[in-house]
């Protein structure tokens, strides 16, 4: 480790970001040193960007189980960093000041174990916005049909009126002429990696997987979500205003998802619901066998448990049983404690050590939040569902791309399905459209479906998957629902999102045509009633190099 380098990095980071005193501790310094050069890697080299230093510091903070949150307003020249929360059981290596902060935070969250989920409902912090009326467009309301030449009014972040031409527009409202345009609610993507990966091949910008163990329910996507990612402004100008962000799929329980809106002045404003769901993956990828083509998570040349489906299932079952057991013990310890404090004797002797991993599973074991089962084949789905029934989990299915043999059975389960990617390949000797037609087949069986774009390079293309499913038999209205109201219902936010209805969050898109067609150009996006800039890294590059020259006249 080069001490000059560490100093440079450390000071650059602290000065550049106005680090709070709490983190300026010897313990933090040593953690930073470790993060800067843990294995001789060059996270911070001589040319280190400030962002790399920031990354190193974050790593250091993470190693001390601190969540550092960037509290920055776009308007302010100097972003301010704060330690907002210090989570987890104990922080012996941190200074007292920090421990105090942690204690205060714990006290504030006043907590039986599962209340530590940082849940926030979007509308609780919606900002006041001036009235805007969109008039003249074709409104796709989703819940009550199409209104030609309609009017939508937004104010204070919400839709305040919707109706045909002649609907009252409040005085002083900014009027947007949408004649010839199509107006629809912001689309909702039911699985993305937004903010977890910038350039996938660059490990420094990739926070998708924590592969050290398969059972990682205590990983919180919120802790890695990089709200300033360059990808979000690119994706939202395609009309996508909300998304699930899920971790990568290397693990069977990789961590908890967040539900975001694709605009906000900081991370907190963009996370609409924290820890909204827990993915449970049951496919080849989670098996730790080192076989070429298997995509196994094991290091090359090694095989470790679980290397089979038996192993995966047993490991998951054990995790859920451990969590139940843990809860029972916590409960009885709490009871004893309450007894002993009544007796004013002993006390504390029976205190249970908290186990954050098991604790993270409890809301899911209580059926309070959905477990998103990711499996492709029928038999894998059945295995995972058996497990889910055993523990009374609330289920959302994901993928299901090769479960054509059990479609009726899936229908009978009465659970929603995030279907796709519909671009998954059919098996050899299957008809070419075996996967394309899956949304239609599930819909026919009464399954509520939603679409997802999954991989970060394809997030902006969410609407086209829905469109393509129409080519293979899904009714158009259902395809639209599957990227609006259906996901809103699946994720429990239908009171706020998913349609053009009075009282809902004003996430509204104006485009020059059908939202699901590849040719359609999005002209304006509103999120919480705010007009979103259409500029992004890609438009800037386009314009920097002269833009698109006019077509030659013919």
């Amino acid at each position, binding site marked *: 480790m080069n001490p000059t380098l560490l100093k440079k990095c450390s000071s650059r980071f602290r000065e550049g970001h106005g680090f709070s005193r709490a983190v300026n501790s010897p313990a933090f310094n040593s953690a930073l040193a470790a993060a800067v050069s843990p294995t001789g890697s060059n996270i911070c080299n001589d040319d280190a960007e400030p962002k790399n230093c920031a990354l190193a510091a974050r790593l250091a903070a993470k190693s001390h189980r601190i969540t550092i949150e960037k509290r920055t307003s776009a308007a302010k020249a100097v972003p301010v960093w704060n330690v907002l929360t210090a989570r987890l059981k104990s922080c012996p290596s941190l200074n007292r000041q920090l421990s105090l902060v942690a204690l205060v935070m714990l006290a504030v969250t006043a907590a039986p174990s599962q209340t530590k989920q940082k849940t926030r409902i979007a509308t609780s912090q919606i900002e006041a916005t001036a009235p805007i009326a969109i008039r003249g467009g074709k409104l796709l309301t989703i819940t009550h049909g199409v209104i030609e030449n309609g009017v939508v009014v937004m104010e204070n972040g919400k839709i305040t009126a919707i109706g045909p031409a002649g609907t009252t527009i409040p005085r002083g409202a900014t009027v947007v002429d949408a004649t010839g345009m199509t107006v629809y609610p912001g689309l909702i993507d039911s699985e993305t990696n937004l903010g977890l990966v910038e350039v996938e091949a660059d490990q420094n910008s990739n926070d998708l997987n924590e592969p050290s163990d398969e059972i990682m329910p205590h990983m919180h996507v919120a802790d890695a979500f990089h709200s300033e990612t360059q990808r979000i402004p690119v994706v939202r100008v395609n009309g996508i205003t909300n998304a699930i962000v899920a971790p990568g799929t290397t693990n069977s329980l990789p961590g908890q998802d967040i539900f975001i809106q694709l605009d906000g002045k900081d991370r907190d404003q963009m996370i609409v619901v924290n820890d909204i769901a827990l993915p449970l993956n049951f496919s080849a990828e989670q098996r730790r066998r080192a076989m070429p083509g298997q995509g196994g998570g094991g290091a090359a040349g090694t095989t470790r448990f679980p290397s089979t489906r038996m192993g995966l299932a047993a490991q998951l079952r054990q995790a859920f049983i451990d969590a139940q057991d843990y809860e029972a013990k916590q409960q009885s310890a709490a009871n004893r404690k309450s007894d002993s404090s009544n007796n004013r004797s002993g006390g504390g002797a029976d205190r249970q050590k908290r186990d954050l991993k098991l604790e993270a599973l409890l809301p899911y074991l209580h059926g309070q939040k959905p477990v998103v089962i990711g499996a492709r084949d029928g038999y894998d789905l059945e295995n995972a569902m058996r497990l889910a029934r055993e523990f009374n989990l609330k289920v959302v299915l994901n993928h299901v791309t090769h479960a054509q043999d059990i479609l009726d059975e899936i229908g009978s389960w009465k659970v929603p399905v995030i279907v796709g990617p519909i671009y998954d*390949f059919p*098996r050899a000797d299957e008809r070419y459209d075996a996967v394309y037609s899956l949304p239609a087949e599930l819909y026919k069986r009464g399954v509520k479906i939603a679409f997802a774009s999954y991989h970060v390079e394809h997030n902006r293309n969410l609407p086209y998957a829905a*469109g*393509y499913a129409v080519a293979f038999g899904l009714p158009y209205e259902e395809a639209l629902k599957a990227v609006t109201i259906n996901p809103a219902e699946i994720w429990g936010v239908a009171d706020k999102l998913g349609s053009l209805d009075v009282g809902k969050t004003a996430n509204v898109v104006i485009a020059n045509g059908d939202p699901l067609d590849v040719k359609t150009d999005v002209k304006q996006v509103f999120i919480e009633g705010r007009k979103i800039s259409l500029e992004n890294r890609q*438009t800037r*590059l*386009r314009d920097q190099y002269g*833009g698109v020259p006019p077509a030659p006249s013919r």
Partner: protein
Amino acid sequence: MAILSWVTRLGFAALISALPASAQNSDSQAPASPQPDLLIKGGTVLTVTHGVIENGSVLIHNGKVAQVGTNIAAPAGAMVMDATGKYVMPGIIDCHSHLALDNDVNEATSPVTPAMNMLDAFVNTDKGLYHALAGGVTSLLLLHGSANMIGGQAVVIKNKFGLSRDQMLFPNAPRSIKFASGENPKRVYGSRNQLPSTRMGNFEVQREALQQAKEYMRDWDEYNAKVQKGDKEARAPKRDLKLEALADVLRGKLLVQIHCYRADEFLTEMQMAREFGYHVRAFHHALEAYKVADKIAAEGVAIATWPDWWGFKDEAWDAQPWNAVMSLRHGVRVALKSDSNDVVRRLNQDAGKVIRYGGATQEEALKMITLNPAWIIGVDDRVGSLEVGKDADISIWDKDPLSSYAKVEKTIIDGEVYFDSSLPGLGLTHWKNAPMSSGEFEGSEMDDEMGIGEAH
């Protein structure tokens, strides 16, 4: 500038047409039993080169387009295919694919492997070919991967899925060779602590190989000259397949297809081509072409790109979806290619995207998946548009192919139907229900250029 680039391009085209087309002499030209004429009638005909013909017809005779227009009468004995309400366009051509190579995409044991021939890896039963056929794809250029600065020689196929290996070869298609640059070679060899591990190393490896080829070519030229003069003492230099292939590059006998992302690397590659006296046929991926489009156009080099993939690795970080149309407007010949077993199935949608990003006309968008990739492969005189005398390679769609909603109803190659979605089962007309092979890449949903894991 525009005029200059035109002149350059014309000169270049003349040069290319003088190339000995070669290589793929297959048995597929053996005359089969004469086909009956086929009249496709009453559709919206997207000719690509001479507009859209509403209520149009295409007459096919002996596997070639015999007439395109309205009110074409069916000759006696002709089969008539009613295309009322349908869209009829040329078959889609993918000029960058690694399908049907059974994972033998990269001979990643040396950064210079020009003697490799993808024909040796071609597996004609790959289900991916079927999927592509069902997406209207009639011809493909199957390329070596991008692990090596100088990879192997490509194979051009007609997607007659169900026929034999030899019958699927595109007859007399020109030879192409794959070059690469940038992150993939330097990562593959750098990770083994070998040369190249930087872009400096990359280009040095390439320059060194070309220099050797130049000397090899000189030795052979000298020898041949001696033999010509009747010198009985002349001793033939040792034949070296690697240098022989590269000498063919220098002699202009191979179309050079270069995997290249960054603007500076386009310039280096074109500089090196000038230095050694060959031409670059196309830059593939070419995500930064918009930065130096005028220079690429002036050199007569085409690009084969994606409309909207981006950011999967550093050299793809400056991608922006207006690249295709910006480059086109600067005079570059632009093709959209798949480089993916997935995207090859819906290149029509990718063409729709360039209407959205940059306002390509319908004809320009269609050219990017038909005539322009045909030019990159060197077969634009044979396929890529609906013109009299061209091969009758045609796809018929139920809706506007440049939309999210279209699907292929029929794919026709050399006048014969190879895919018909109305048929029960797979919709294949020539497949004999043998087991299909499944030569997907490792991590099959990704494509080869994503730069993840072991490079392809």
